[in-house]
């Protein structure tokens, strides 16, 4: 096993979502492999906020569906279907409880999860660079991707060293697979990989295991 190479694994929002929703078994395998070999996992703060926002928005949409159902049921309570009243009360109780408990709980649990990785703090500098990248019409084209990408660049610039190899995992191939992004990252010793499986193969290769 080659222990002279320092390998850093950089990941973003999709990796977090894959890990917590068990969407891709290889994501957990990659996580365990990395930790077993003391590879540090680095994730932008932006990605944890984005993952929390994605889940929170989905839960809020469920509340909106509940509201729609409650409106329909409340119209029925004045009709021959007035036996829906207990159901309305139960749904209202469920919604109140859900709002009071779920969002704070989700936030606390994401904060807890964020403690598994080294976090690249999101800063005004990163946001400004992402904005300028957008004005220059440089990939990645989406604002959220640019914030993540600039976080990765910021980290790589600060931590590059001759013995360090960084691997950046994103499965967002459509937004990141541009030759000039590969080149920009390669200059900072960062390899771009588009699947956890590919990362596993590459890490095994680098560690000679």
């Amino acid at each position, binding site marked *: 096993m080659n*222990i*002279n190479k*320092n*390998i850093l694994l950089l990941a973003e929002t999709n990796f977090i*979502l894959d*890990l*917590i*929703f*068990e*969407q891709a078994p290889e994501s*957990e395998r990659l*996580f*365990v492999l990395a*930790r*077993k*070999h*003391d*590879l*540090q996992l*680095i994730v932008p*703060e932006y990605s944890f906020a984005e993952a929390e926002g*994605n*889940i929170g*928005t*989905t*839960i809020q*949409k*469920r509340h909106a569906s509940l509201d729609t159902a409650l409106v329909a049921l409340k119209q029925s309570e004045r009709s021959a279907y007035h036996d829906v009243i207990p159901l309305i009360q139960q749904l209202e109780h469920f919604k109140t409880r859900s709002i009071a408990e*779920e969002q704070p*709980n*989700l936030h606390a*649990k*994401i904060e*807890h*999860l964020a*403690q*598994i*990785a*080294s*976090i*690249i*703090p999101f800063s005004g500098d990163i946001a400004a660079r992402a904005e300028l*990248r*957008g*004005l220059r*019409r*440089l990939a990645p*084209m*989406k*604002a*959220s991707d*640019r914030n993540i990408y600039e976080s990765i660049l*910021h*980290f790589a610039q*600060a*931590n590059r*060293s001759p013995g*360090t190899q960084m691997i950046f995992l994103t499965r*967002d191939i459509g*937004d990141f697979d541009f030759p000039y992004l590969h080149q920009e990252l390669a200059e900072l010793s960062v390899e771009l990989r588009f699947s956890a499986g590919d990362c596993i193969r590459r890490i095994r290769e680098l560690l000679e295991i």
Partner: protein
Amino acid sequence: MPTENTIPLKGVIPPKLISLEEQLEAIRDLREFLRQFPGLAEEVMKEREHQQEHSPAC
């Protein structure tokens, strides 16, 4: 004690959960919470795709 692969990093907030077991526990804890919402993963992924498609592009 840093090993060969845990060099000090610049400009990051270091992880507070160090052992693999602690880290897996944090993942399991969140998974357990999210199991209260069956089908959430699919909805989140759809929502994410929707957001990506409608994200302001430069």
